[in-house]
């Protein structure tokens, strides 16, 4: 037995219509961000100081 309306079943969409796409975008961006976060932390921690010359040289 399904609780979904016949029309919703025929269209095969959830309430927001792009749930699967949104799910994938979230996972892909999360996987991409994971190594980038490690990179950012390492970069920021390796700055010898927060002076203007140091920071602009790093950028």
């Amino acid at each position, binding site marked *: 037995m399904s609780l979904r309306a016949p029309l919703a079943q025929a269209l095969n969409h959830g309430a927001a219509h792009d749930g699967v796409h949104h799910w994938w975008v979230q*996972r892909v961006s*999360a*996987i991409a961000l*994971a190594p980038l*976060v490690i990179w950012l*932390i390492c970069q920021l*921690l390796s700055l*010898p*100081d*927060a*002076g*203007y*010359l*140091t*920071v*602009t040289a790093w*950028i």
Partner: protein
Amino acid sequence: MMAERPLSPFLTVHRWAYTMTLSILHRATGVALIAALLGLVIWLISASFGADSYAAVLPALTSVAGKVVMCLAVIALIYHFCNGLRHLAWDIGWGFERSAARRSGKLVLLATLIGSALCIYWILAHPAGAA
């Protein structure tokens, strides 16, 4: 007044478990990190605008309040990172059992504690000299 019919389960019907707190913390730290990202971008943009604008922004970051916010942001980032990996593991079906989820939750807390302690020590040990 409660209806005399079955209700769908909501937060209030469940006995509290610390994994629930970890779950809401993931969302809370995610929202907080948006604000922290704004601060990071302001810092970078001020540097790109030149020494004067950088000198105007830097005191806000190196003040005691700025350092407290920075430390909180570091904790939030590391927690969200570790718990995000936990979520990704769940997405491929790993560690869904209750005992495994509780164990990984403890692991996330431990990793956050150690990771942020190291980062905060590093930040505070290095004086942010305005060279």
